[in-house]
């Protein structure tokens, strides 16, 4: 009896193991296919950025040429820095400066606002939070047009750096995630510090800030990346002048109908050029990003 039972159990165990194995193989296959799909567009961009002909229908134009015998070339990258009609390097410097300054100033302001809403209790707290919530529901860029007119009245439309002003001015709207994070820090810490004679300023900088590294990094990262992708404001402000464009506006110009044949490869090169630092930054700070987004976006 016993050996038979044992054999039975063994075979059951084996079949179970086999089922798990096949399941896992299926999952691996699925994940691999998915990952391939995920990176294919970027690979396409990478290969095209080194191609010397305009051949958008070929995945690797360097190997599978449409006409002639093209090979690897770095000319597309050189073009980014040399070209006068569409001066990529100017856009790049514009955007880099704007995003760096925005990241610093906005992080301070977002965190300050979040701290005020999370920790301080004042009469207008709830009304203000509700007001900001409601303001966020208006479609933002109808007001952008009016902002443009306001800037024009103040004679600020001659420089792309006016974007800084607008980005920073909107920082109160982004209190939500950081506030969620601050909410999770125990209040007893504040109280202990208060008993020791700290005022609220000291508590903010000496108690809360050191505990909030993930959300500081998260906010800085988000505010740094945002200007790279902001299209609308930049396009309104640049108003078609190539010198004043940001990267997003300019690169959209690169693949407009009249330019695409000449500039498509340069567009891909520019994409690679922009992505590398941001990807590096992102993966370097990924830990904080994940902690910030899970700690703040949702309260668990």
């Amino acid at each position, binding site marked *: 009896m016993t050996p038979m039972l044992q054999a039975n159990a063994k075979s059951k165990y084996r079949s179970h193991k086999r089922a*798990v194995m096949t399941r*896992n193989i299926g*999952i691996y296959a699925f*994940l691999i296919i*998915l*990952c391939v799909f*995920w*990176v294919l567009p*970027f690979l396409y*961009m990478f290969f095209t950025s080194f191609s010397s002909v305009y051949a*958008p*229908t070929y*995945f690797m134009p360097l190997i599978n040429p449409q006409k002639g015998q093209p090979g690897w070339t770095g000319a597309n990258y050189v073009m980014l820095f040399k070209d006068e009609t569409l001066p990529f390097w100017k856009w790049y410097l514009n955007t880099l400066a704007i995003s760096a300054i925005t990241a610093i100033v906005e992080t301070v*302001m977002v965190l*300050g*606002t979040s*701290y*005020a809403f999370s920790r301080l209790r*004042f009469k207008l707290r709830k009304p203000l939070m509700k007001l*900001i919530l*409601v*303001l*966020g*529901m208006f*479609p933002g*860029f*109808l*007001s952008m*047009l*009016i*902002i443009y*007119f*306001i800037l024009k*009245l103040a004679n600020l439309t001659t420089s792309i750096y006016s974007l800084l*002003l607008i980005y920073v*001015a*909107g920082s*109160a*709207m982004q209190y939500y995630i950081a506030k969620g994070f601050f909410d*999770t820090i125990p209040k007893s810490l504040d109280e202990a510090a208060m008993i020791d004679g700290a*005022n*609220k300023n000291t508590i903010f900088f000496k108690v809360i800030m050191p505990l909030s590294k993930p959300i500081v990094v998260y906010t800085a990262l988000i505010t740094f990346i945002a200007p*790279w992708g902001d299209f609308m404001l930049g396009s*309104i402000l640049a108003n078609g002048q190539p010198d004043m464009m940001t990267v997003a506006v300019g*690169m*959209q110009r690169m*693949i407009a109908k009249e330019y695409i044949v000449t500039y*498509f490869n340069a567009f*891909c090169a520019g*994409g690679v050029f*922009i*992505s590398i630092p941001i990807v590096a930054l992102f*993966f370097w700070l*990924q830990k904080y990003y994940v902690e910030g*987004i*899970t700690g703040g*976006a*949702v*309260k*668990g």
Partner: protein
Amino acid sequence: MASNNAVLETKTSATPVSQDADGFSNSEAGLTLDSNLEYLSLTKPKQILYKFAHFFTAIPKKLGRFFHSVPRKARDRWHKGQGVVRGIYDAGANGDVFTRLSFIFMGLGLVTRHQIIRGILYFLYEVFFFVFFGIVGVPNLARLGSLGQIGSVQYEIIDETGLNVTAKAVHDNSFTVMLYSIITIVFILLFLFLWYNQLKDSLKLQRYGAIGKAASDKDTIEDVFNKHYDRTLLFIPILGLTCFTIIPIIMMILIAFTNYNSSHITPDHLIDWVGWYNFSSVFSTSASSTSGNFFKIFMQVLLWTLIWAFFATFSNYFLGMIMAMIINIKGIRLKKLWRTVLISTIAVPQFISLLLLSKIFADTGLVNGVLRSWGWIGSANIPWLTDPMLAKIMIIVLNTWIGIPYTMLICTGLLMNIPNDLYESAKIDGASPVKMYFKITLPYMLFVTTPYLISQFVGNINNFNVIYLLSTGGPAYTLGGDVPLSVTVQGLGRTDLLITWIYKISISSTNPDYATASVIGILVFVLVAFFSLIFYNNSNSVKDEEEFQ
């Protein structure tokens, strides 16, 4: 609390309960919906139906409560107003010379009582305010009613005989009239607030002085860093919000009531108030006029906006969650690698990925090229982004490529937080994985991520980037087809959302119609506010804000 909910639901799910019509109106016993046992014992679709019905049946009650509270609120306001008047009277009757002089010279009562910084700031604002009010405020406010007029005509005599004369009208810029009027009103409100405050402070300091309590600038510093630290922190953000969000929104609302369009561009033309005309022309349904067609198109765009927002939000949410769960399965190796690869779409700036995708799926793009070289398609291209129906589907599909990683990131951490014993006990009871997902995982995730879902839904209604960069609004409506075009809808495409439509009407169009754009903007706001309010009112994580601290 979350896990409690989940447990309760797993335990009560199996029992079928008679749901008579009365069941739907029985929730008024002071119980909230979620703790009502009868509600919990319903099946899931019935629960949704119940909530839906509850929302509407509760409307009269809520309205009643609202109107009931109106007299009380009005009384409170009245008392508050009385308090302000009494405070001013108090300062006039009982104040000393300096306090009384503060009626005219702001901050005097503070400076003389050693709060020099504060007093000087008050006084500086007063000086600034009156200069501004005199130079900018009065002339603009006076013109607000008519939005400016043709002031004078400048004649310029060109030739000697005086016969050839050009006349150039010099008139007001209606736009600046409106803008400066709003700014002046903001300054007036600020002035009244500060004026009352300094009066109150002056009287307070006077009374402190009477009992021998000295004030100094140290109090101000204490206020700045401790007592009123909220004001210190919020001053600049609120200032920025006022200048670049609140004032523009007020302007936008005002513009919806004017005729600000391509034939009335400032400063060459005057704008005029037109009342509700713009709204009525958007909503007019008379089929003969162009505006009737406008309404028809508006409804189509609105419908697509809602469909898009729904599918974009929930496809990302569920697919992202499933991805997170698959990678979380025990025994799957290289977890970090899979996550890192999938996250790459977050790290690369979104506009690059979107522009790239728009080119890859273009008619003469990579996908069609590769399919042709494999011999899968003939000479005709597959119109990925140029066929109305296919473009809509493709946009939702491509959007998951960008959106899944975000949800995956959020869900990965949260899924690990679900207590494992819940699953173990469910397994012992013989629950299938699918059942466990619907009875344990999903309720928990929904509970925790409702705020995220709301912001996603709202964000998708206003998602400019994905639509504009992928399809630029997609294939255009064909002229003379089912929907004839009027001037205001030129450039509108089949995949345009309300938000990209506004962009086309107001910014990229050669005949911009700001007034109509504002009307649509206000309608978008109403739409978004409606959905957010429903969600927020039913979301536990918003109700229990303090519970997490």
